[in-house]
């Protein structure tokens, strides 16, 4: 490949992460002045899982995410992402790690002077200069569509989008590099229920087909039930419990009980049960046909 000799000095890319825990947080303490947000918090995220993170408003979910991606320097503790210590090294030294994750911020954080399509192109341009313009444009177009936005949104500026559309555009940018690790801060907040369900499906599909590990902060109980393998509960400045929803239900922590057994929690659980019943019934009906066909 003589034409691309000049590219050979591009930094080598580490292979995919093969350890057990792409995200490991140990003894994390975060403070803002006198306010202690996290104290001795530990959390391990397994490779290939969708981890839901729940907790009351202001319990420090977003701050936890910021610490994991290296934007918030913790007062104490250790954060390891894809096998690299994020707290020790400078953000700039972690290029190898940063191009393997995608982040959706709670506020969208789109670049306001660029169109949605250009927003998606930014990480590609930054990390993969060898990708020619045509391919980059094509990638941007299908990512925008993949995130559930209409074609017309690609050339729009963030100020011309609705709140939910901004969220989706943020997701498109987070997915731009086909990352191994996806951080989503309330991706379905502000989406209509149909859009939210579609988004859940998209996340699930991507997680399964690409083997993504997803760190998903959400208040959406349906999302938790639908796509999360495990759920981490943030309260009292720590992760008080991590587990599947049935496991969490067995816990007797009052906040967890209130959360899953409150009126909304019940409704979400029931709708999930109904869906499972329906799916079962459909499968039973399909079964004989399946045998003959």
């Amino acid at each position: 490949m003589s034409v691309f000799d000049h590219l050979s000095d591009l930094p080598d890319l580490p292979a995919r992460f093969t350890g057990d825990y792409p995200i490991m947080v140990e003894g994390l303490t975060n403070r803002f002045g006198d306010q202690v947000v996290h104290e001795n918090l530990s959390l391990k995220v397994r490779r290939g899982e969708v981890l839901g993170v729940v907790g009351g408003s202001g319990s420090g979910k977003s701050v936890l995410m910021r610490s994991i991606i290296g934007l918030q320097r913790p007062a104490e503790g250790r954060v390891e992402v894809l096998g690299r210590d994020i707290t020790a090294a400078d953000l700039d030294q972690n290029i190898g790690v940063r191009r393997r994750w995608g982040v959706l911020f709670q506020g969208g954080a789109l670049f306001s002077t660029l169109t949605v399509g250009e927003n998606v192109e930014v990480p590609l341009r930054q990390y993969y200069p060898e990708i020619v313009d045509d391919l980059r444009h094509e990638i941007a177009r299908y990512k925008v569509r993949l995130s559930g936005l209409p074609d017309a949104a690609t050339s729009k500026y963030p100020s011309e989008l609705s709140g939910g559309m901004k969220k989706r555009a943020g997701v498109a940018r987070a997915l731009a590099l086909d990352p191994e690790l996806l951080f989503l801060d309330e991706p379905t907040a502000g989406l209509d229920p149909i859009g939210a369900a579609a988004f859940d499906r998209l996340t699930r599909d991507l997680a399964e087909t690409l083997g993504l590990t997803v760190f998903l902060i959400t208040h959406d109980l349906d999302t938790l039930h639908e796509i999360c393998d495990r759920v981490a509960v943030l309260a009292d400045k720590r992760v008080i419990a991590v587990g599947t929803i049935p496991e969490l239900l067995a816990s007797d922590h009052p906040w967890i009980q209130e959360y899953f057994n409150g009126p909304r929690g019940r409704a979400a659980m029931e709708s999930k049960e109904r869906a499972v019943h329906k799916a079962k019934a459909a499968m039973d009906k399909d079964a004989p046909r399946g045998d003959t066909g």
Partner: protein
Amino acid sequence: MRDWAEYSIAQADGGGASLAFSGRLVVSTVGPIDHELRDLETPLASVDLANVTEMDTVGAWVAWRIARDHGAQITGASETAARLIDAVKSSASDAEIVPPRRPLAERVPLAVGEMVYAWGGGIVNLLGFLGAILVAMGQTIRHPSRFRLRSLVHQLELVGVNSLGIIGLMSFLIGIVIAQQGAVQLRQFGAEIYTINLTGRLTLRELGVLMTAIMVAGRSGSAFAAQIGTMKLTEEVDAMRTIGVSPVEALVLPRVMAAVLMMPLLGFFSAVVGIIGGAFLADLALDIPFFTFLRRIQEVVPLHDVWVGLVKAPVFGLIVGLAGCYQGMQVKSNAEEVGRRTTMAVVHAIFMVIVLDAFFAIFFTEIGWD
């Protein structure tokens, strides 16, 4: 050295070639082969993915796009690969990334026309804005309890007190320069002593206020525009309106008032420090003792010079405050706009100040204050 994805082309007997990808077909490896395959002339009958070890949506896209362009079959796709290809296939689009641009021949006249139009509209809007401020002022006079005293005090501090240091330093240096340059020229006529007149009258009449206005425009006018502009972007201004708080009353009035009130004080301060600078230099370099210089100032500078400065100052303050707040309120849509408007606020303010200063100079001479 990076491991790029690889491909090979085998000529099949039954017409058309077969393209086989191998290795990792992912975003970090497809760049070069995508580039090469774009110019591929050989018609392909099939695209084989059997030897692909890993794939992501970008890899799937590249494979699918080549198959589409050649009307080729995709073979050997694993289940994952097939799902990914399905996903990108159904998301394929040819949407524009940036809004289409008109051809240059249309764009230039259009931009010029819009600029002229905006210029005319800008003057009308600025007058309207001034009107809104006057209305808000009337409102606060009628309802003094609505007046934002705290906000005004805060702005007074930001505009006035906090800029004392920089304005003092600037004025001191300017005083030195005037005295020094003046002395060099006047010495040729043996009129070195007139350096005192020059420094005193120039700083009090012209330079003190003018330089201060420029400094305040750069320091505070820009801050007004950037603050209000950012608040417009984050919808804070809209939120204020819906709560029934008038943004002009809450944001603009305190800032403009602070600029109007502080400019005379700062201008006078600047003139005084300038004179001290001149006296300092005279003491060191011209053998005119420091206090003699100051005493002579009282004798040679007519009182109306002080008034000239003090009359101009609030007008300049008004211009600086108005330009800053007006440009801030015009911000829409994006962060770049904040920067553009901030620049415009400073440039317009300084330009207007200098133009008006020329008018003032003629005016005061005509009425005999020369």
